[in-house]
């Protein structure tokens, strides 16, 4: 985390020289009514007490917040560089919203920066379409007398129809927004929002602004869209890509979706992003196939190709390496003499060596399957729990009528169901995590925590299968078990997160 502090101090020295921008982050923080401001490392030591080790600081931004955030930055840069807002917006998008670098670059070489960003040196004035006598459009070769034409500051003039088609194609067809260039050949002038507004239909303009807003979030490292379907919020979190070895930044969007800020997959605490990626890849290749292989095949003792014997005698010739061996004892075929269809050579040396090697590779497969089965089981159980959750709603209604409990009083079932989902999600990933852990004292503690959580979860899960009339009497019990599950989850996650942050885990893979 030292490097983070270094980064902050560099940034703040930039603030000294342009003090207007220093106010930005703070005022934003106030706007959102949060008691922390942007810096992740800065206030970590102060606020850390209220945060669990596995939690990260983040805030959720609505589309309006994003808009405002964006405009504020544009206006600031605009006033610092005394450029019109449209030009500042283009500059910022060109510089991928790295304000400090952009301002510095502009101060040093204004002309070059403008040129590279696709802004000519002369960017004043309101754009308008014109009728030019004797004009021939270079695109459609039209030359009518009343032909409306348009040119940006680069002077490449085309008829308004062609311009419109071109912009429509770029926006609708190619999803471009921030970097649409002049239609002229080799011209890098970016079509600014004023010119665009003049030319396109309102519907297309909306699309354009949506795309623009997207590039803002996409360009900024501290912003990510919530990946939930139809969710239009973004999350602001200062965890950097390089921090992901030490931290699993799970965030929760206003739409209730929990996801990892690092990789935008569903919450996968306690496993770090990189391991999750490896695990998912492995499961994609293996899983069911691996099960079948384990049950039905053997490996060639020489090249370890997997072989299924689907008939024929015990004399095997490996298709790949041409090794000849006996299916029964895995020994060399040449040592078999004439006892072909009835292998009785179990004690021979060549066979036993082959079997040891094979046992080793089977053991590694079985180890994987051990973790995979538990991982998959929790995934499956979470789905079943979810079905139960849907039934709880019905149960809750029937509880209300049967036992005379009020709506508020039956909410405990909803709480319990949510806790169950979350704990299963965590448990699932503890198995993927454990698969990559090298055994030591820490893993024993980890496994104990895992076992405790698992026990708590199964106990709570069982409660849901009780008949509805009994549920009212079990309320206290369910509440207790829910609280216990949550507590075990916090303990497990805190422990793994602490060790991850301090680099205490040792892994059996490089990542």
């Amino acid at each position: 985390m030292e490097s983070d502090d270094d980064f902050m101090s560099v940034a703040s020295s930039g603030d000294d020289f342009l003090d207007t921008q220093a106010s930005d982050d703070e005022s934003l923080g106030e706007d959102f009514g949060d008691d922390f401001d942007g810096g992740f490392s800065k206030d970590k030591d102060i606020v850390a007490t209220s945060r669990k080790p596995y939690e990260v600081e983040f805030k959720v931004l609505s589309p309006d917040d994003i808009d405002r955030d964006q405009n504020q930055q544009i206006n600031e840069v605009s006033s610092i560089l005394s450029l019109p807002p449209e030009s500042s917006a283009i500059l910022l998008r060109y510089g991928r919203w790295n304000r400090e670098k952009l301002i510095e670059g502009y101060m040093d070489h204004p002309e070059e920066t403008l040129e590279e960003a696709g802004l000519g040196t002369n960017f004043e004035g309101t754009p308008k379409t014109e009728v030019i006598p004797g004009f021939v459009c270079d695109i459609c070769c039209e030359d009518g007398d009343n032909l409306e034409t348009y040119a940006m500051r680069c002077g490449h003039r085309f008829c308004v129809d062609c311009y419109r088609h071109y912009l429509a194609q770029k926006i609708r067809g190619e999803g471009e927004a921030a970097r649409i260039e002049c239609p002229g050949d080799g011209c890098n002038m970016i079509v600014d929002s004023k010119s665009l507004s003049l030319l396109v239909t309102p519907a297309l303009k909306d699309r354009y602004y949506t795309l623009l807003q997207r590039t803002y979030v996409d360009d900024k490292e501290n912003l990510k869209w919530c990946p939930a379907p139809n969710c239009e919020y973004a999350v602001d979190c200062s965890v950097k890509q390089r921090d992901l070895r030490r931290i699993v930044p799970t965030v929760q969007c206003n739409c209730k979706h929990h996801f990892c800020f690092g990789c935008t997959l569903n919450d996968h605490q306690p496993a770090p992003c990189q391991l999750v990626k490896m695990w998912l890849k492995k499961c994609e290749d293996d899983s069911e196939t691996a099960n079948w292989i384990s049950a039905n095949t053997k490996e060639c003792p020489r090249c370890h190709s997997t072989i299924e014997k689907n008939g024929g005698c015990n004399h095997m010739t490996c298709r790949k390496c041409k090794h000849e061996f006996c299916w029964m004892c895995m020994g060399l075929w040449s040592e078999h003499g004439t006892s072909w269809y009835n292998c009785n050579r179990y004690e021979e040396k060549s066979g036993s060596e082959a079997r040891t090697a094979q046992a080793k590779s089977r053991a590694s497969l079985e180890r994987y399957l051990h973790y995979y089965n538990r991982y998959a089981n929790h995934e499956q159980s979470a789905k079943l729990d979810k079905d139960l959750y849907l039934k709880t709603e019905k149960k809750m209604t029937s509880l209300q009528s049967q036992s005379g409990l009020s709506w508020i009083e039956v909410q405990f079932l909803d709480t319990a169901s949510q806790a169950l989902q979350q704990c299963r999600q965590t448990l699932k990933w503890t198995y993927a995590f454990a698969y990559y852990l090298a055994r030591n004292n820490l893993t024993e503690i980890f496994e104990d925590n895992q076992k405790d959580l698992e026990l708590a979860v199964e106990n709570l899960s069982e409660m849901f299968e009780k008949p509805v009339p009994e549920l009212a009497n079990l309320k206290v019990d369910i509440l207790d078990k829910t609280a216990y599950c949550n507590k075990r989850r916090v303990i497990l996650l805190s422990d793994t997160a602490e060790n991850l942050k301090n680099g205490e885990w040792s892994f059996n893979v490089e990542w």
Partner: protein
Amino acid sequence: MKEHLPPGISIAKSENLEEWQMDIRVLDENPLYQNQVYRLKFTFSSKYPIEPPEVQFIELPSTSETPRPIPIHPHIYSNGIICLDLLSSAGWSPVQTVESVCMSIQSMLTANTRDERPPGDSDFVSYNRRRPRDINFFYDDDNV
């Protein structure tokens, strides 16, 4: 258009507005392309010229009256597909014409000194079933 085409470029087929064929040859002494004529096929979509046309070399067998081989070039695959920024939607400008594209390709050949196909040519040619416009070329070398 026919009358004032630049030297080395001529129309081979232009019966409709969906597909044109052009013959081009290299004008200088470049030994790689001496005494050869090459055939380019232009396919125009309904959005042309807002969208780029699809342009590729086509081969006519050496036994035919007008043999047309595929020119050797580090950016031209042996199935005639051309890796040229100008022909992608990012590099295209609606101001371009058939004539200007031909000239660009002509100069691309003229400037080349390397007697080779793009890396991975045989794999690309045997596995590619996509149309040129759907391929995301990686313009790795701007010098050729």
